[in-house]
């Protein structure tokens, strides 16, 4: 245990935050969509995966990583808009399980389409040159790209917060999450708000997929694993709560990273243990509203 210095633990903590940042982005989209539309988007992992593949494609036709950072969320968001409009909208009012089932079927279709277009095997995804290498953060050298992931997540969160809290459209979204009927009575076209929220949520999922790609490469199945883990994040944080998603996402990232330092074989299981504890102690999660699910 001599190697377990304070510095190593601190570095591992940072690695956990970088991993957690991806969870945060993923879970925030999931939470935003659920909080507004009460739709559990089982295809969220597929949007994440397609985001990474679109990035791969754009780079292969001559784009660079920075263009991707802008283009991928826009393209995935547009795709999300189309999905909401064509597939999910007919299901509103038909029970909470149906959109879930539909998006589950959609994830099959999306994964298989990517397999047809790109093949079944995965691809490596190069870290952009500027972000290669490591930088001294006081406790040791830390990969620059991971710092960038943390920074980019912070920027997205800040932008989202400003959008939700400071714009009039954000006000409508927050009101719609609380009581869609009253908002509709006040003359707001709620279905348009839902459409846009679904687009934003999926755009963030695509962005998260792109950010995760240099860390773990891209394979068609990459969305399935993170979906289960993001469910843990939303259960721990409280469904429909953005603050909860942020806190729980970072916590889950740190827990995974710390257990892989001390007990590597338990790393995958640890987050589910965390969820089990939260379910026993506080079933609605950190910031969940007790009555939201009934």
């Amino acid at each position: 245990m001599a190697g377990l210095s304070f510095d190593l633990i601190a570095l591992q903590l940072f690695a956990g935050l970088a991993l957690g940042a991806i969870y945060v982005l993923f879970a925030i989209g999931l939470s935003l969509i659920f909080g507004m539309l009460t739709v559990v988007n089982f295809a969220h992992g597929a949007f994440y995966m397609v985001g990474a593949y679109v990035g791969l494609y754009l780079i292969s036709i001559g784009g660079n990583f920075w263009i991707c950072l802008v283009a991928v969320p826009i393209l995935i968001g547009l795709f999300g808009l189309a999905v909401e409009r064509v597939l999910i909208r007919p299901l509103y009012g038909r029970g909470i399980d149906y959109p879930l089932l539909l998006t589950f079927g959609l994830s099959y279709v999306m994964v298989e389409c990517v397999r047809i277009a790109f093949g079944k095997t995965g691809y490596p995804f190069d870290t952009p040159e500027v972000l290669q290498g490591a930088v001294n953060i006081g406790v040791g050298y830390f990969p620059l790209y991971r710092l960038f992931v943390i920074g980019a997540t912070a920027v997205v969160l800040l932008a989202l917060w400003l959008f939700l809290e400071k714009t009039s459209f954000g006000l409508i979204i927050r009101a719609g999450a609380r009581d869609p009927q009253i908002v509709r009575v006040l003359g707001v076209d709620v279905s348009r708000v839902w459409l846009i929220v679904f687009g934003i949520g999926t755009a963030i999922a695509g962005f998260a997929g792109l950010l995760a790609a240099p860390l773990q490469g891209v394979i068609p199945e990459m969305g399935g694993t993170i979906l289960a883990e993001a469910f843990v994040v939303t259960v721990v944080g409280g469904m429909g709560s953005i603050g909860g998603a942020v806190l729980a996402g970072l916590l889950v990232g740190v827990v995974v990273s710390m257990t892989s330092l001390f007990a590597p074989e338990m790393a995958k299981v640890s987050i589910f243990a965390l969820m089990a504890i939260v379910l026993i102690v506080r079933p609605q999660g950190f910031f969940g509203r007790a009555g939201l699910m009934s």
Partner: protein
Amino acid sequence: MTDATESIKEPRTATVSWYEFATRHRASIVAAVILVFPLVMPFTALAVNILIYGLYALGFNLVFGYLGLLSFGHAALFGTGAYLCGIAIVHFGWPWYAAIAAGVAGGLLMALLIGVLAIRTRGIYFAMVTMALSQCVYYLFYQAVDLTGGENGLRGINVRTIDLFGLRIDFINPMIRYYVIAAFVIAAFFVMSRILASPFGAVIEAVRENETRARASGYDVTKTRLLTFVLSGGFCGLAGALQALHLSIVPIEILHYETSGLVVMIALLGGMGTFFGPMIGAAVFLVLENVVSVWTVHWQLIVGAIFIACVLFFPAGIWGTLIARSRR
């Protein structure tokens, strides 16, 4: 349904009574169909798969269709049944009947563990928590390499003959194998029919229809849910155990969340909350999968698209739509 005014208004009483006949003798009808099924099915292996997945979907449907909770973690119940049956044979040398009992017990126990945690949540949370917990079970079995064989799966579950009261039955012969497995599946359908016809079965549906009212009538909703989930685990555990005996290996993919998704598709396709739905769904789904995979390797695309169409246009499933037609 059958009073005089109804029958005057309804010119199609014959179909209604046909439906009532089917409901009254539901388990016997399933038994009869299962017994003649391999005679019309060209591939016995496919027929066995339909039996096993039909049983798996039957257990799932108890929770999804009758209790009204969507579980995305049934792979854990199915897989635990398969693994425990396999481990009992490979590592402990148990006879086949004890191994099947171990599989059922494994399904019940795993359902109890998952159920205790997942029942604490409500509504849509249930799907997410069951899926996450079953993913946890996947990793646990994946890492217990000594017992489960890890990534390679559990191999060597060789049951060649089945000894029954001095009789030695050849389990290698596909037709005999089908009927041995069919015996268990038919028994399970009779048990399920009995459960659904019991007062407890009525409570299950009462909880689905109106939780508040069921609670006000003095039923313990939480306990009903837990018990139903555990019972479902028993059926799925049996299906898993039969799967282990049939395949003679247990692949790790049996615990993958796609196995959970598969049963959701089967149940919805056949008709959720109907007695015949799971078997019909399994038959249609697996035959479709077989046919499509001959034609293209990308069968998941077709299956996914059909599933989307089902959710959008036929949420009642095949059998559910038939019932609705006959009642119209």
